[in-house]
């Protein structure tokens, strides 16, 4: 069972000078260069590591040098292949498989080389952390920077929505109520993330967050590494376990919550709080006067979580509550601090939203069937969407199954990392509480993943063979080759899971320009109607424009629209007060969403477009290869109504 590290200080390091438990204390008198990657020799362990002597002969020296440098090879080859693939990938004509079929084959080769290189590099329990970190950073670059480089515009309509929220804060300079903004006021009740981004935009002197949006998946994924590694380091010294766990977290985190969103930052802060509580808040009997300072740090990290996101504070509170119930972390201070902050914010600033949503939230408690439903109009349709969907399911199922296997076959790890095991079990409880807009199952996966990845790694590695004394032996050949296909498979499966629906998520510059011009030129109070909200700026200038997505109506209403598209839409859109106008927008992004989520067939889409294009109610006002904008002739509708 883990104990206070300082308790073992005298046993572990007779040379230590310091009295404290941090790296700057000078506790270790080992030479600083021993931390270099070269320290990870197969025979001579890095400084500070108890192990066999490395020998002194010329062959030993040569082996040591080779061991120090060979991991550079696969990493360099992989990144070179990736760079070549990025340069030669063209995304002008994406098919239903998204980036999977568009990316150059060198990308896949690079990813395979990287995964294999990683697996052989971390085969030693005492391999210097720098190598694990280098490979994981390489993986994140290949996973999360590729889209930023190959697509000229940011992905995901949701991210564009968040850019619109930042735009609203910059335009208004303050927070608004539901009476002024309608449903979008919810973002003004949890404004933390957007407020910070608004400051960044102003201070950098840029027009919007679009560039940041493109790179945010990489930035947020790198940011989450530090708390994740710290959590894993709380339970083992074995670098294989630590870095394989981190690797599996990166490849299993396909859910896509790393995009430009409050939850991406909130997840990092959530994990940081958990890491600090696991490390610094042992049972109350160990409590000292430092508690106040550590609590100050925790509160500092919790506040932005509470200000920014609805769900993460709930997960945090439940996680801290579960930890406080364990003997090892029986300290209620972090839990009470989180509850107090959550209550303070939700009973004041976000009370309007909560009071309106509370009846529905209460009704969903216990309704597990409804809470795991994915919702109307989200049925993957077409070979690409179905493949991506199944790849994602298989990937998640594999990681969870490995986690179960790892926990079962490593009882010593189950004991050592029991708090982490408990934390992994917390998120599934949320399924019983709420559906979170049909997204709860994905959020549950995301919150489970830090712990699940750790135990999944344990399933792929041999038992470390004792916890005391010398460094465990390197991974034997059997354990090196057998799990390799699994590591390769999950690493490659990430790509279709994460980027297999890019036809949905990517909006070419022509589409962004078409919508941008419309939003910019529409008079105040105008209505912008579209089939669905899958296009850039679907919430553009929402504080002065209304938006309407007709495929999100109930199925009966959608049927009425499909039976007489132009007339039904015209009647729905006609009540726009002057000086506003009513626009109808069709784009390729909407079409991809309608087809790939099973809302409309290609034939139905064409019929709607043709009906509008040939109608007397609508006049085409803008068009390019990515879409068309129509303006409703309100007088024509009125004349028609009078005639009837």
């Amino acid at each position, binding site marked *: 069972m883990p104990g206070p590290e300082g308790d073992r200080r005298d046993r572990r390091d007779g040379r230590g000078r310091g009295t404290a438990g941090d790296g700057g204390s000078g506790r270790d008198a080992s030479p600083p260069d021993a931390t270099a990657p070269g320290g990870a020799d197969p025979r001579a362990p890095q400084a500070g590591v108890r192990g066999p002597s490395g020998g002194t002969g010329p062959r030993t020296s040569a082996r040591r040098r080779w061991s120090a440098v060979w991991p550079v090879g696969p990493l360099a080859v992989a990144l070179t292949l990736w760079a070549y693939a990025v340069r030669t990938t063209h995304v002008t004509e994406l098919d239903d498989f998204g980036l999977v079929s568009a990316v150059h084959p060198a990308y896949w080769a690079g990813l395979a080389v990287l995964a294999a290189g990683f697996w052989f590099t971390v085969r030693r329990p005492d391999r210097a952390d720098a190598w694990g970190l280098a490979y994981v950073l390489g993986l994140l670059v290949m996973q999360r920077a590729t889209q930023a480089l190959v697509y000229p515009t940011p992905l995901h309509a949701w991210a564009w929505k968040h850019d619109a929220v930042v735009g609203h804060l910059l335009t208004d300079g303050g927070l608004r109520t539901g009476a002024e903004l309608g449903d979008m006021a919810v973002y003004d009740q949890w404004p*933390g993330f957007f407020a910070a981004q608004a400051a960044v935009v102003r201070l950098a002197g840029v027009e919007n967050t679009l560039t940041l949006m493109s790179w945010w998946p990489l930035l947020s994924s790198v940011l989450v590494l530090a708390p994740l590694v710290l959590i894993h380091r709380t339970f083992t010294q074995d670098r294989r376990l630590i870095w394989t766990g981190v690797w599996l977290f990166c490849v299993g985190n396909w859910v896509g919550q790393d995009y430009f969103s409050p939850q991406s930052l909130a997840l990092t*802060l959530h994990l940081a709080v958990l890491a*600090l509580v696991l490390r610094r808040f042992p049972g109350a009997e160990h409590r000292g006067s430092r508690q106040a300072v550590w609590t100050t740090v925790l509160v500092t990290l919790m506040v932005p979580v509470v200000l920014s996101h609805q769900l993460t504070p709930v997960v945090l509170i439940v996680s801290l509550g579960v930890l406080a119930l364990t003997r090892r972390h029986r300290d209620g201070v972090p839990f009470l601090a989180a509850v107090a902050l959550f209550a303070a914010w939700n009973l004041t600033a976000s009370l309007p939203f909560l009071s309106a949503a509370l009846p529905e939230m209460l009704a969903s408690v216990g309704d597990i069937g409804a809470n795991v439903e994915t919702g109307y109009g989200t049925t993957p349709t077409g070979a690409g969407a179905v493949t991506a969907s199944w790849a994602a399911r298989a990937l998640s199922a594999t990681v969870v199954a490995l986690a179960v296997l790892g926990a079962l076959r490593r009882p010593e790890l189950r004991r050592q990392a029991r708090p982490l095991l408990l934390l992994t079990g917390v998120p599934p409880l949320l399924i019983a509480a709420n559906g979170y807009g049909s997204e709860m199952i994905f959020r549950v996966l995301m919150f489970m993943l830090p712990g699940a990845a750790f135990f999944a790694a344990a399933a792929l590695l041999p038992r470390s063979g004792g916890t005391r004394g010398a460094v465990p032996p390197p991974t034997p050949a059997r354990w090196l080759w057998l799990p390799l296909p699994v590591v390769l498979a999950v690493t490659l499966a990430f790509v279709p899971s994460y980027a297999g629906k890019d036809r949905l998520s990517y909006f070419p510059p022509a589409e962004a320009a078409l919508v941008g011009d419309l939003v910019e030129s529409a008079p105040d109070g105008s209505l912008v109607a579209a089939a669905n909200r899958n296009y850039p700026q679907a919430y553009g200038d929402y504080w002065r424009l209304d938006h309407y997505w007709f495929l999100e109506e109930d199925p009966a209403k959608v049927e009425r629209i499909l039976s007489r598209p132009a007339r039904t839409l015209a009647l729905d859109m006609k009540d726009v007060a002057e000086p506003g106008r009513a626009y109808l927008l069709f784009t390729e992004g909407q079409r991809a969403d309608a087809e790939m989520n099973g809302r409309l067939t290609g034939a139905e889409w064409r019929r709607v477009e043709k009906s509008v294009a040939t109608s007397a109610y609508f006049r085409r006002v803008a068009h390019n290869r990515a879409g068309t904008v129509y303006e409703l002739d309100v007088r024509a509708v009125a004349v028609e109504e009078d005639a009837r």
Partner: protein
Amino acid sequence: MTARDLLTRMLPPLTGWLAVGALTLPDGSPARVAAVAVFLTAGPGAALVRIWWPALRVPPAVGPAEDWDTRFTGRSGVLERLLLVPLVSLAVLTVTATALLAAQAFSGRRVLLLLTLLTLLAAYCPRTRPS
């Protein structure tokens, strides 16, 4: 106070004033973006962690049961401190910007000035004492 202590203490507010000065550069210029980014992601956090760290580092951290790597604990401590610097910076940025928005007084310059003043104040604060 050694030269290193002075540097550690004054570097965060210095990066803040550099960021303030960088606002005179053209909109979106790389130097301006870099100066602002460095300060916002590290300045306030470095200043506050400097104050807190003597008290934070004293209690032993909970760690793994294995003890074959005697430097492991120290490295975890370094990682912990490195983790706190950007996250505390981002936390302070988030709270400051939100407070100004709630007060209908938001502007980028106000956020930056407040954070720089906070960082300056933190630089003059004595460090907590290990107890």
